[in-house]
């Protein structure tokens, strides 16, 4: 790797652990090693730390502590929510409604259920990636047991009309889950107002470590266990609790909430600056996702006639760390299911770039990034037979 300044612009994939979070985790990793299920003093100390963290997380969501269950990641929260409701309500019905742009944690959990006799409706989204609440209403059947629609998309950043969708679910007495892994810590979530029954979060999207998440389960919602085992998490999630990470998770979430107004302004400024400059400087480029109903830190472009991985390698070489599609499919050959769902043809879906800002991002990086992109895109188009064909056609 070259020795250029490295600029991390992939905060939607993961974030570093912020120092304040590490600070609260370290004493626990070092000294407070008690098992919260243990009877003696050391165990009860751990238990108290755990319950305080639960209280903190509940406060961030305006929920009750007894509605917060800690998990090992966003994927587990999604699996639990979806498979847990499916199992608890299988006698009532086997129909689940979701969207075409969910994270693989949701889509693959649904597919696993499809293999077990459940029927899944995958709702279309519009060109901006929005789910139409009325489409949810229209898809509801007597045997519908669950609607699961993400709060904000991890690739294109589009924020869904969760309140309306939840309202429709409530009117129809159907459990509503939302994957808020990208939303939590980035936009406000008030569960005393939002008609949401289940909500997934993951710590590593807001400067807690990778490997800790939570599932909010509204009081009274019927859901089976997913991780069967000991009596932890009020008998609903087995496994010795990861106290240090849980404490870090709570701290990071609390800080994110406290700083949200400020960081939203800062991130949006960076985002909008980049979007404006890229669209201006690079012809035949489109912004993917909704222009305003989007996460403050997310920009996603399709550069016509060229392919995304090539862009990424060159950006990486020049010091910019971004992604194309979601991180966990970047090893894959398939174009992003999200970009196909918003209607992009394959070649445009292949040519996407996601830039997600975070705490370390600086305004001065934007111009350097735009310069880099202009050069890279020009270079790759020079090599591209699609560009050649396009130029000939339009001569």
């Amino acid at each position: 790797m070259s020795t250029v300044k490295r600029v991390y612009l992939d905060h939607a994939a993961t974030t570093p652990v912020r120092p304040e979070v590490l600070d609260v985790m370290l004493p626990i990793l070092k000294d407070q090693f008690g098992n919260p299920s243990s009877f003696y003093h050391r165990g009860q100390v751990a238990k108290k730390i755990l319950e305080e963290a639960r209280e903190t997380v509940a406060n961030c969501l305006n929920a009750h502590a007894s509605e917060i269950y800690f998990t090992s990641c966003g994927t587990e929260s999604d699996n639990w929510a979806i498979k847990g409701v499916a199992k608890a309500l299988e006698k009532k019905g086997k129909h689940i409604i979701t969207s075409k742009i969910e994270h693989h944690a949701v889509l693959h959990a649904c597919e696993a259920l499809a293999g077990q006799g459940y029927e899944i409706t995958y709702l279309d989204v519009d060109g901006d990636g929005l789910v139409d609440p009325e489409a949810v209403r229209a898809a509801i059947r007597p045997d519908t047991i669950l609607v699961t629609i993400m709060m904000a998309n991890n690739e294109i950043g589009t924020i869904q009309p969760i309140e309306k969708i939840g309202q429709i679910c409530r009117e129809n007495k159907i459990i509503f889950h939302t994957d808020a892994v990208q939303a939590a810590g980035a936009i406000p979530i008030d569960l005393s107002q939002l008609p949401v029954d289940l909500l997934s979060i993951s710590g590593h999207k807001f400067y807690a470590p990778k490997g800790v998440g939570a599932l909010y389960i509204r009081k009274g919602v019927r859901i089976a266990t997913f991780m069967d085992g000991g009596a932890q998490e009020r008998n609903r999630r087995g496994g010795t609790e990861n106290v240090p990470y849980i404490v870090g998770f709570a701290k990071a979430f609390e800080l994110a909430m406290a700083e949200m107004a400020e960081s939203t302004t800062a991130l949006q400024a960076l985002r909008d600056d980049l979007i404006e400059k890229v669209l201006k400087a690079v012809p035949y480029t489109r912004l993917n996702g909704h222009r305003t109903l989007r996460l403050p830190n997310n920009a996603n472009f399709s550069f016509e006639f060229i392919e995304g991985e090539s862009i990424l390698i060159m950006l990486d070489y020049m010091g910019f760390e971004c992604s194309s599609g979601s991180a966990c499919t970047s090893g894959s050959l398939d174009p992003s299911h999200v970009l196909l769902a918003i209607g992009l043809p394959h070649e445009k879906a292949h040519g996407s770039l996601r830039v997600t800002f975070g705490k370390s991002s600086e305004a001065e990086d934007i111009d350097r990034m735009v310069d880099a992109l202009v050069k890279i895109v020009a270079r790759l188009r020079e090599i591209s037979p699609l560009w050649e064909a396009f130029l000939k056609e339009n001569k």
Partner: protein
Amino acid sequence: MEYSDKVMDHFMNPRNVGEITDASASGMVGNAKCGDIMKVDLKIENGIIVDAKFKTFGCGSAIATSSMATEMIKGKTLDEALELTNKAVAEALDGLPPIKMHCSLLAEQAVKAALKQYYDKNGLMNESNKHLFDMLEDDAHDHGEDQH
């Protein structure tokens, strides 16, 4: 993706990018759906490939293998060029990540497609060499993996 230095070199500084306006033959393979397309132009004189140029829409290894494949066939006889295999291209690049091996197939295929056009045009195709173009029959880009 961990690419070898050779791959990176051929990706960042690809050889033989371009068109040959008076090409003896051209081949174009792949499709946008799979995310890579490669076009090869050949200039052939006296049974020797005197020039080769490419344009590629695709990932890093698609571009690098295009560059390497064109390098490898320049100055070669048609028979020699027909012996080019994707394995040889990948080896010349010090290897490719397993998930990217299909890209080297694209380069072999593009060269063969151009040569086929030349053979067809010049009536060189016959029973004994026809099989060398077999790979162009089925879509080498049909990944055939179960997608989920």
